[in-house]
């Protein structure tokens, strides 16, 4: 019914719609010719160019049709578009396209347009306003935040039980370890970026310090993982303080630039100090972790030592070590999470958040800003160091290649996408940023394109992160008491309009 009421008043302005679709298709043409149409190939005669005009034509055609669909939704024909878009999605599954990527674009594009059309049919409008969308997303974020009180423990139980299920093969466990490593790094960086509001672009430096601390201590002094883990944390924290002292007086962009530089300096030192660090060749043969120094994960242990499977009377399986690593990183990550959740409710954590909100006001309240920021920096660096030494012992081999700027950027992207300061947001964002590319490995090069597109979309729809929602750390009237509504509605705006509005007056 609503669809009818929308479609009746306006007739379709075909020329305008065709023009709009043609313009969009032209933009797509400009973009796809260099990106898709031309490809360099290695030929015996040298580097050659290969052209792929069929793909370009298909992409431009899809863009044209997609825009046409969007225009028709706007002009009150959502039902027709819904049917066509759904058909296109189905066709994507059935027919063979020139490339896999085009098929994905067809399916995803068709699905997006179909959803838009469905929303238009339900609400009678082609588009929600920005404010409405924000409000909806904020409500969802608040719900997720509240749900995380019981969702969190469930997730932990699932994560704990996962290796015992028959699902847990080598590949899935490896992906699990990878995800947990990034979750831990995300939670660590969240302390600096999310709570203290310091934009750290060089977090990977501390990850590298931790990894190399363990690798070098094991290599030169033969120290075991369990001795090196705290040492790596301490060394990383130390380097955090070392960097922090001169840098923390800088603000905003300048701070970000210096941390970026620091990240690169560490990497370049690792590359160039080859006598000590092995240079670009890295360090191999890093000892694997033992079972808390008691037993090793090997088939036949050397004389006088114990093997894990012997100790527990199990059949030897190479999976034991993977499962152990999985639990190890799970525990490490949970330590970071519990720490963050607790520190938020302590004066130190509140001071961090206050610094993020307004550091001049903090000075006027007698808060020693340098010490607070240093503490945030050192603690986050320590967790980065733990993660680093875990990474070293898992891989058994490290080289400076693993600690490039792109790693920092990915970790930062996880924190920002998840919603700064949101613990559950980090988990969701890690699943998106690390999990999805892993899941869509067959898309090969296009997965980075899809990743970039996802980032752009999130920044357009939800600039403050997917689950940006802040719950107060103390409530006078409890969760459902006086002003709970105001607080919930308030946090949504507080990051931006609330403050800006208040100041502008």
């Amino acid at each position: 019914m609503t669809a009818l009421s929308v479609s009746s008043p306006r007739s379709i302005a075909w020329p305008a719609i065709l023009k709009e679709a043609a313009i969009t298709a032209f933009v797509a043409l400009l973009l796809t010719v260099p990106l898709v149409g031309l490809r360099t190939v290695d030929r015996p005669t040298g580097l050659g160019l290969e052209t792929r005009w069929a793909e370009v034509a298909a992409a431009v055609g899809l863009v044209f049709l997609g825009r046409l669909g969007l225009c028709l939704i706007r002009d009150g024909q959502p039902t027709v578009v819904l049917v066509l878009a759904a058909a296109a999605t189905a066709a994507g599954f059935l027919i063979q396209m020139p490339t896999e990527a085009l098929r994905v674009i067809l399916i995803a594009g068709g699905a997006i347009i179909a959803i838009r059309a469905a929303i238009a049919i339900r609400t009678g409008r082609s588009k929600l306003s920005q404010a409405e969308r924000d409000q909806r997303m904020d409500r969802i974020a608040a719900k997720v935040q509240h749900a995380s009180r019981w969702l969190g423990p469930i997730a932990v139980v699932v994560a704990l039980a996962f290796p015992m299920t028959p699902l847990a093969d080598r590949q899935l466990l490896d992906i699990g370890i990878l995800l947990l490593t990034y979750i831990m790094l995300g939670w660590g960086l969240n302390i600096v970026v999310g709570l203290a509001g310091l934009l750290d672009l060089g977090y990977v430096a501390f990850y590298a310090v931790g990894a190399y601390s363990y690798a070098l201590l094991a290599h030169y002094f033969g120290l075991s993982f369990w001795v090196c883990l705290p040492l790596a944390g301490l060394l990383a924290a130390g380097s955090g303080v070392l960097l922090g002292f001169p840098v923390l007086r800088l603000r905003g962009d300048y701070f970000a630039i210096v941390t970026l530089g620091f990240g690169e300096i560490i990497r370049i030192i690792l590359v160039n100090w080859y006598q000590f660090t092995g240079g670009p060749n890295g360090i191999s043969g890093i000892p694997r972790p033992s079972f808390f120094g008691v037993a090793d994960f090997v088939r036949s242990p050397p004389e006088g030592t114990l093997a894990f499977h012997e100790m527990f009377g199990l059949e030897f399986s190479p999976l034991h070590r993977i499962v152990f690593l999985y639990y190890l990183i799970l525990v490490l990550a949970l330590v970071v999470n519990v720490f963050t959740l607790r520190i938020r409710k302590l004066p130190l954590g509140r001071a961090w958040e206050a610094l993020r909100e307004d550091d001049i006001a903090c000075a006027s309240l007698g808060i020693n800003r340098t010490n607070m920021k240093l503490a945030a920096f050192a603690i986050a660096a320590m967790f980065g160091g733990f993660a680093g030494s875990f990474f070293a012992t898992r891989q058994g081999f490290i080289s400076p290649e693993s600690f490039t700027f792109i790693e920092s950027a990915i970790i930062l992207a996880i924190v920002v996408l998840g919603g700064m300061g949101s613990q559950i947001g980090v988990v969701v964002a890690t699943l998106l940023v690390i999990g999805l590319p892993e899941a869509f490995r067959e898309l090969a090069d296009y997965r980075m394109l899809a990743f970039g597109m996802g980032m752009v979309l999130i920044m357009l729809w939800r600039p403050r992160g997917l689950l940006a929602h802040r719950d107060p750390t103390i409530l006078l009237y409890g969760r459902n008491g006086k002003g709970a509504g105001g607080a919930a509605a308030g946090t949504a705006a507080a990051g931006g309009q609330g403050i800006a509005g208040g100041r502008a007056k």
Partner: protein
Amino acid sequence: MTDLSMTKTPLLTVEHLTMRFGGLVANSDVSFVANNAEITAIIGPNGAGKTTLFNCITGFYTPTVGRLTLRHPDGKEFLLERMPGYRISQQASVARTFQNIRLFGGMSVLENLVVAQHNKLIRASGFSIAGLLGLPSYRKAESEAIDLAKYWLDRVRLLDFADWSAGNLPYGAQRRLEIARAMCTEPVLLCLDEPAAGLNPRESGELAELLTFIRDDHKTGVLLIEHDMSVVMRISDHVVVLDYGRKISDGDPAFVKNDPAVIRAYLGEDEDAELPAEVANDLPEVAQNDVKRAEEGA
């Protein structure tokens, strides 16, 4: 109120304060005394250097020349110009508010007031270690902090809004909250930078009451920059007038109100007095000519 001489002790002594920014002299040789448990107002036209003076007192600027002595009622003395910014609040117990409100907008009203008690609490939390372990000593300190916050929230009539986001409060409430936050640091000197700016008459009336309450019941000295003369003249015990960075008048409100230097600064020069005698004598004639010409034109 038993011993008047007690309340008349000097709290803040400003001597020969000069603040230069390159060639610009924002304050030049300003000296005055603010007494304990009194409201001292600093007034002056825009750009007179009032906020610069505040920034020097609260440690945001280091004065070029001059001495700022803060004498606590218990006799402790602090030389403010030698202390780094945050210590002035932490040790010398000077609190301030800002001309453009600086609340922690994303945090709740109650959190704003608890953050203000940071130094007390971080010691009680054993620099977070006792807090992380959840020791009872910290929990006790925190509940005391919340009690103090509740006391001040009640005073500024924001108790019902304790769990709101500070950024979502109406403007007047934000002003009151900022004062409550400053008072939660338990200061001996409270510096307020235009607290009545943007308030309606009813709200500024309440503000005046709040400030007299702070002065009389908490024996806190108040240093007040304000443009709203109705507030200044009603509650101040002592008024200091600045113009172009210099002190031009200093005394009780009645004296300052009638001081010709102050009137000149606010209303401009008395033109007749300044003109040379021959010009002044010609003026009526010129005026008549003007009138005539206008009539002819019509």
